[in-house]
């Protein structure tokens, strides 16, 4: 009898556990590497895919292309010498490293930070979050083939980098938050110029909403794709926007307020669908929230006071034995520093807990089987992973 079903005898067999028995030499599978030299990969990492037709049956993340051995290098440096290299752990949002490291050192050494410095730190972190989300918005549109959003977003990010430059003197690596406070206060007229940038950003974001979030093709490509079961959030350590897209309002800023977040009023945006669409829209709304937070901070913060406490002689600075863990809500999820000191002038151990560590490894490997080759890039970008914080 004639059947519309294709002849499946040439197709690979499914094993008893519902998975394929992958034997490349049968010729039924193809090994396909995404990365490290691949435009669809977020940074220098690679995903090793085994595909059967257009379907991906297995995927493994490979990292280590960016490994510099930071945690080892920090053990060789005195506490103040660590400070210039910490920010280089994560490129698109370096300030979290500075804050977490500085806060950990301050806690173990018992240093008090002036109130205004805390406000400026919060401002810097929100500005960094703004930049990081801008990259993510451009990335998710770019992964689905819409390059123009990336152009706009990078332009706005450039404007924000100008404000960073005005405040800190550097575009990417600011080295601004150091143990004891921040390097300087706000320059004259900073608020007005910042407001200009924020307004431009809002204008562009309105356009993005029109072009991206009402677009039928975008909806079709993202809705229902890359679904993460909210039950898996705890076991896979999902935090940040990825969890908020699945209805769990996990946000360190709210759950365990640090710096001055308890003095700011905000609601964490939450979506329910837990697919690529929900993760994109959560980022978009979070970006709006960040703009609002920057305004609040600039309006509420004290100005003109002390921003730096005097440190002990940093050449002979010894911190007694102890350990601590400092966390904060980065644009990708919970970012943390685990610092162990042993009474000498050097840290005994610094461990960086980047949110991508769980998102890009175990979670991505769990999500990839069963997706289409075309969706892998979008899936990865929607998880918003940065490889340097996985391997340091």
């Amino acid at each position, binding site marked *: 009898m004639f059947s519309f079903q294709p002849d499946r005898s040439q197709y690979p067999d499914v094993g008893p556990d519902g998975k394929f028995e992958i034997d490349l030499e049968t010729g039924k599978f*193809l090994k396909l590497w995404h990365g490290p030299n691949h435009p*669809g990969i977020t940074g220098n990492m690679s995903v090793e895919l085994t595909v059967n037709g257009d379907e991906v049956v297995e995927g493994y993340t490979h990292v280590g292309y960016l490994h510099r051995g930071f945690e080892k290098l920090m053990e060789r440096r005195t506490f103040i010498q660590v400070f210039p290299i910490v920010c280089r752990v994560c490129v698109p949002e370096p300030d979290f490293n500075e804050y977490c490291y500085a806060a950990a050192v301050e806690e173990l050494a018992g240093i008090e930070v002036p109130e205004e410095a805390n406000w400026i730190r919060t401002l810097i972190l929100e500005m960094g979050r703004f930049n990081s989300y801008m990259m993510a918005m451009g990335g998710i549109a770019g992964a689905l*083939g*819409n390059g*123009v959003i990336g152009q706009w977003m990078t332009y706005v990010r450039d404007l924000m980098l100008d404000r960073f430059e005005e405040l800190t003197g550097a575009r990417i690596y600011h080295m601004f938050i150091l143990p004891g406070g921040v390097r300087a206060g706000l320059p004259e007229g900073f608020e007005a110029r910042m407001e200009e940038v924020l307004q431009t950003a809002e204008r562009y974001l309105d356009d993005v909403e029109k072009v991206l979030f009402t*677009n039928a*093709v975008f909806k079709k490509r993202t809705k229902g794709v890359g679904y993460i079961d909210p039950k898996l959030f705890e076991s896979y350590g999902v935090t940040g926007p990825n969890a908020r897209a699945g209805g769990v309002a996990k946000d360190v800023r709210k759950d365990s307020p640090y710096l001055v977040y308890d003095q700011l009023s905000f609601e964490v945006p939450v979506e329910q669908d837990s697919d690529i669409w929900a993760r994109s829209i959560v980022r978009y709304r979070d970006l709006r929230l960040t703009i609002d937070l920057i305004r609040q901070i600039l309006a509420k913060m004290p100005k003109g006071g002390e921003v730096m406490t005097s440190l002990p002689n940093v050449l002979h600075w010894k911190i007694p034995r102890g350990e601590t863990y400092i966390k904060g809500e980065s644009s990708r999820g919970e970012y943390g520093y685990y610092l162990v000191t042993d009474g000498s002038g050097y840290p005994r151990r610094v461990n960086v807990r980047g949110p991508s560590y769980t998102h890009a490894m175990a979670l991505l490997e769990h999500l990839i089987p069963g997706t289409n080759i*075309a969706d892998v890039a979008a899936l990865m970008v929607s998880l918003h992973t940065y490889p340097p914080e996985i391997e340091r």
Partner: protein
Amino acid sequence: MTFEWIHIAYAALTLFIVINYGMIMTALVRKIGARVGGRYGIPIWQNYIDLAKNIALRSKITHGVMYYLGPVFRLTGGVGLLLFVPTIYGSVMFQNFSYAGDLILALYFVFFGTLGMALGAGESGHPHSAIGVSRGLAQVTAAELPLALGVYAISLQYQTLNITEIVAAQQGSIFNWTLFTNPLTTIAAMFAFVGTMMRSPFDVVLAPQEIPIGPPTEYHSAYLALMQTNRVLFPVAKVVIYMNLFFGGATNWAEFAIKVFAIYMVSVLIGVVYPRFRVEQSIRFFLKWGLPVGILAILTV
């Protein structure tokens, strides 16, 4: 039509004009795309420099005979398409080798380049090429269906398979264009047009974020130069067909330039703000929207 040797010189001249026009136009289109993103864009003569650069590269590698022939076939498709279609209506010089049944041959040439490329890229042995080829063939087949139906409807409408006669029937007033006399056919064919221009949302074949960059992954130096030439020639040749069939043809080069640019911009304007479909989504799209419109066009003729 009697054949004269001078036709070959005339055809070469057409080819020369169209290639140069294509070079400038595609650069202009890229500039427009850049302006949407807020950039200044490439210099208008960048395509020439890229071409010269690619020819100037010193080392070439090959993967076999078909790998050589792929770009050649592709270019043949473009040149053949152009040469068997009257470029300028009513001009002896730019009539090319148009003859009684040229519409069928044109349809064949539209597909010819893709097939040749598939063979060549397949031999390059890169998985991205192979995936790109299978995607490309599947999508082009689905996308060309409405065009085939549209062409059928047109030949029913004008009772001819000769493009020159079809153009002749559309002369006189703008309302004689197929666009107005038979809008359904035009819509059906425009589905095919947008679908085969390799721009978003139907550019999953090239998709740099997934299979960088599809079939031409392994092509470089002079092979790439050949393909670049085709990339500026083939779209223009294809647009010429659409222009002749649906938009009243062109009677002089100025009209040609404006019409080709306008029709080309249809796919560009759609492409610049749309993400791309997955391959099965785009096939479904053509079967769901393009095909019924095409069938309807035939029924209503």
